[in-house]
């Protein structure tokens, strides 16, 4: 028996719609209720007839603003540190053959096996000793440790996708090794590296376990939301908090979609 082609098409679109709804419906609900006035939310109405920024304001008063800024600070510092350490590592892994190279690669992946929560607790002890507990720098260091395997492997793949002879042409036509890296390799890797950087930022942005364990007064946004906003019984405030959390990720996806595709494509080459 042959299935008519329109039936196949229909099934395909039904499936895709389901998939899109799966992602979009919770986002839409969170966004809508983040701006729904309390009296409307607790009435029988399903959709609000007016919108309000009052919940965001409440969160602000509770300290979401500072938490937001702290999150940005920790995220940026994490990107900076993990690239400072990880980028040369990735380059070396992609360009040089040396003894133990594969073992190192495997080791990098293996570090991902340890649950972060376990590491956080022992880290806290160390941080107390170093006086790094409850500091943003300490948290950024922890996030760097978490992001480093990703950064090394992804930048390694990105550099690996850049043909060696293009670099050699740079050497032959008068550049030093460093000159080649700065003027040939980096510009070619830039789109992929930019996406990897944004991705690393989001890793830090979304991280909540270490942030909750390692800081007390200096909480980043997710940690703040976990302990403050989600503790309130007022549901729209929770939605507003959720909205604050997704916002950067959404903006990132919107602007960096092309680069993300490039990054994975470069890495997969």
């Amino acid at each position, binding site marked *: 028996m042959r299935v008519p082609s329109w039936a196949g098409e229909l099934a395909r679109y039904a499936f895709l719609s389901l998939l899109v709804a799966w992602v979009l419906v919770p986002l839409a609900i969170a966004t809508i209720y983040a701006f729904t006035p309390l009296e409307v939310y607790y009435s029988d109405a399903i959709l609000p007839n007016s919108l309000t920024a009052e919940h965001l304001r409440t969160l602000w008063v509770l300290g979401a603003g500072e938490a937001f800024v702290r999150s940005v600070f920790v995220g940026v510092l994490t990107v900076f540190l993990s690239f400072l350490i990880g980028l040369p590592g990735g380059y070396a892994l992609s360009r040089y053959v040396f003894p133990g190279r594969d073992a190192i690669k495997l080791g990098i992946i293996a570090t991902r096996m340890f649950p972060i929560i376990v590491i956080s607790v022992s880290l806290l002890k160390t941080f107390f000793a170093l006086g790094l507990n409850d500091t943003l720098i300490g948290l950024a260091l922890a996030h760097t440790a978490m992001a480093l395997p990703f950064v090394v492997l992804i930048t390694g793949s990105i550099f690996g996708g850049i043909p060696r*002879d*293009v670099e*050699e*042409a740079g050497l*032959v*036509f008068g*550049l030093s090794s460093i000159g080649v890296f700065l003027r040939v390799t980096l*510009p070619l890797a830039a789109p992929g590296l930019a996406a990897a950087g944004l991705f690393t930022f989001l890793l830090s942005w979304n991280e909540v376990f270490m942030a909750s364990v390692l800081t007390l007064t200096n909480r980043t946004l997710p940690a703040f939301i976990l302990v403050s906003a989600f503790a309130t019984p007022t549901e729209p405030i929770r939605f507003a908090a959720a909205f604050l959390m997704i916002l950067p990720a959404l903006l990132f996806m919107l602007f960096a979609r092309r680069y993300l595709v490039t990054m994975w494509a470069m890495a997969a080459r």
Partner: protein
Amino acid sequence: MASIMLEGIVKRFGKTVALRGVNLEVRDGEAMVLLGPSGCGKTTTLRIVAGLERPDEGRVVFGGRDVTNLPPKDRNVAMVFQSYALWPHMRVFDNIAFPLKIRKVESSEVRRRVRWAAELLEIEHLLDRYPHQLSGGQQQRVAVARAIVTEPEVLLMDEPLSNLDAILRVKMRSEIKKLQRRLGVTMVYVTHDQVEAMVIGDRVAVMNYGEVQQVGSPQEIYNEPANTFVATFIGSPQMNIVKGVISGGLLSLLGTQIEGVEGVEGEVLVGFRPERIVIGDGDLKFPAIVDFVEDLGSDVIVHLSVEGAGELVIAKLRGAHASLKPGEKVLAGVMRSDIHIFDPKTGRALKHGV
């Protein structure tokens, strides 16, 4: 400009020995072609000249200056890569201009020189494009323009024509030759296409197995091959090599004999080129049976089996012989001057012409 001397270059990659003691002199302003089968070490030699690879043993000397341990940037060389290796993030103009900018040439001078190179290679209309917007032939021209724009002392080319179609290849190979003459630059050109080697090279270095087998003008290489490898590698179809014995000046081969072969005694290998065989004439004549005829239009390739001797001989004859039929008996002949004698153990040439 500069001469290039390679002295006893040895290069190993782990367990494989890519070069086993390469000695080569390229004269100032000369076009030297490295010719050899795949994997014989041509690219490795070129990369050692460029400084992209360090030799494990031996020296590289440019015009009296030892450059063995200098990085590429201090050697004033330019290179056309087999893959062209254009910088994908730069337009054609910037690709050609970049070597000048690295040398901090003034910008009006940069523009003048890029225009000069672009005109020479007829790519002025492509200057605003990115490399991926060019055809293979156009990319090749850009790569050559980039290589000549700095007026290097040494121009290196690694099979630059191998990605082009047959017609373009024939056109470009004579253009490269003319360009090299015009610039008077010392050039090392790598290829495994012997016709390309003959057209471009003032001299040709035939390589095999990590060693230079022979260096000479195309004529020398063709007429006086140093050993059986060079003899059979150069020329198409390849040179016939048959067994023979010399005793008291009498050379016996293919069931016949020829007198007055002086200076060599004992078992030998005897070589003669297919295109030097004539039917019914020659100083050495041997009867044979036609096995197979390939008609190429202008020429015919005839496979002959020699009765009694159990040898196969290939002849390249004028198109007029296309009427030969398998099974037909012919009397094939070769002139004395076209016969080469080789040592059967070492393969070294003992005599050219008997």
